[in-house]
């Protein structure tokens, strides 16, 4: 694509791309290096002559071990996992049905209902967190995982519905009609013909929903109060900072380990994930 001398390729392509990659990935490297750095090296000011930012001379696992044994970190991980899986399952269940209905059935108010769901897709969590905290408390859900499992679908369902509508629309009508000619009910045609074809879309929506609920912060911060109930993001934020003291080694270890499940799933389903992102903005 780039014509001319070799230096042009460097100036217009390799150097900018390299700079982007460095900038986008450096914080993760920093997380990794910090989490294995002993306090002696960790708290050495940058003006000190022996400050070695990019390497750790004597790597240690002490922060990670402390995190796993002296804090509730493993508990937070399990909480987050349970909440993310449960809310993803609920959202997929609702999203598949709603997406199917909105894209393939004719009924009154289909258009305005679709628009309504699209609008809820755009409602940020910070708009409603105060009244919602009140409602969660009134439903006796405060400080339980169900407070999050039932509220996360409010932003996951619209997303799943929207994404899956695209997949369902692309399936030819004839397939369903053939099944109905052979005597299948509408329900069976949906369950055994249409939904199986949309599995790649369902997978994309599920992975995306899982990461979104793993990432969520403000609801988890406001609805949960006891340390044993917290999710990773909230636990790390509130329990590893005691008073004004930041336990940086543990914090970075927590950030690293807390990211692993998401990164792990992501690494297996990159293509589905990218399809989820591009599908979500296709409109």
């Amino acid at each position: 694509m780039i014509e001319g001398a070799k230096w042009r390729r460097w100036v217009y392509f390799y150097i900018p791309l390299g700079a982007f990659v460095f900038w986008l990935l450096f914080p993760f490297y920093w997380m990794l290096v910090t989490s294995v750095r002993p306090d002696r090296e960790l708290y050495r000011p940058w003006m000190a002559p022996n400050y070695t930012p990019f390497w750790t001379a004597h790597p240690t696992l002490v922060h990670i071990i402390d995190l796993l044994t002296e804090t509730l970190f493993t508990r937070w991980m399990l909480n987050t996992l349970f909440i993310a899986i449960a809310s993803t399952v609920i959202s997929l269940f609702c999203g598949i049905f709603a997406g199917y209905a909105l894209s393939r059935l004719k009924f009154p108010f289909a258009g305005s209902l679709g628009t309504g769901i699209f609008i809820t897709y755009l409602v940020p969590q910070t708009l409603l967190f105060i009244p919602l905290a009140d409602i969660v408390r009134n439903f006796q859900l405060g400080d339980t995982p169900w407070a999050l499992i039932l509220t996360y679908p409010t932003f996951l369902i619209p997303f799943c519905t929207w994404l899956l509508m695209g997949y369902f629309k692309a399936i030819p009508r004839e397939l369903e009609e053939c099944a109905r000619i052979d005597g299948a009910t509408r329900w069976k045609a949906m369950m055994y013909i249409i939904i199986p074809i949309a599995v790649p879309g369902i997978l994309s929506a599920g992975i995306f929903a899982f990461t979104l609920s793993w990432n969520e912060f403000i609801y988890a911060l406001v609805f949960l109060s006891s340390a044993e109930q917290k999710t990773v993001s909230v636990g790390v934020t509130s329990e590893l900072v005691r008073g004004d003291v930041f336990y940086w080694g543990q914090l970075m270890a927590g950030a690293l380990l807390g990211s692993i499940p998401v990164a792990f799933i992501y690494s297996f389903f990159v293509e589905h994930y990218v399809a989820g992102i591009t599908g979500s903005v296709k409109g």
Partner: protein
Amino acid sequence: MAISEAVGQRAFVQAPRRGAFTRLIEDERWLAVVLLLPTVVLLGMFIAYPFVQGVLLAITDTKVGIPGRFVGVQNFIALWDDSIFRIAVWNTFVYTAVATVFKLGLGLWLALLLNRNFRGKAFTRAFILLPFIIPTVLSTFAWKWMFDPTFSVINWTLFQLGLIHGRINWLGDPDLALISVIIVNVWRGVPFFAISLLAGLQTINPELQEAAAIDGARAWQRFWHVTWPLLLPVTMVVVLFSVIQTFADFQLVYVLTGGGPANATQLFATYAYQIGVGTGLLSEGAAISLAMFPFLLFVVVVQLLYIRRVEVH
């Protein structure tokens, strides 16, 4: 169509053992009702109801544990006179505008770079998405540590390059704090822009580029007159999405500065949290949150109109 339906009906008549419910959902409209019911119930209970509740809360003077009395729009009048609220409004608009411009510019640049063929392309694309998928709060802690005035690797680097002589207090200096927060927001948002715009770029037929090149258009002209107009629909949607998310942002600022120093990074959401949850003034907190609504509504309406227009064409 007519034949297939007739045949379908006959098959239906021949299978009398189906239950009443199965027969009911044979009707397209009833099936739609059944399928949409769970979604409508959940969204109604946890979006529509809280919204109404939020409005009711905002027009009373409820505090934690104390039921409120009706006070009309008094909370909003009080906000108008609240100097911190004004700072938060100003900060939110600056934060949204500056961050969005940079995310779009850098994201587009990165998308154009990734749209070339090179070795390790899939690999690079997978890795640059990391800032977007890793939990924001957790990656923000890495930034907070990098911004620490005493231990900052950024300061060290700038010092070694001879660009600074003293230490820079990235998050503690009121003039710098908002910039630092914006840098992190841009860092997190660029991959999303890049990947979405890359998907848009890949739908553009390369023959158009070639035709323009044969006609003598230079690289810049080809971008401006061929690529950009075709990319505009995707760009619009991505920008509007991002504007909503950035405008209502909370977690980044909460972790980095908590709204400080001296409210220099206070946004709508952080201020609402501080008043509503921190201080327990539920009504005032709800009013601050709801004050975001007009702008959000405006963006949503623009987005809906734009999508409709694109669909018509």
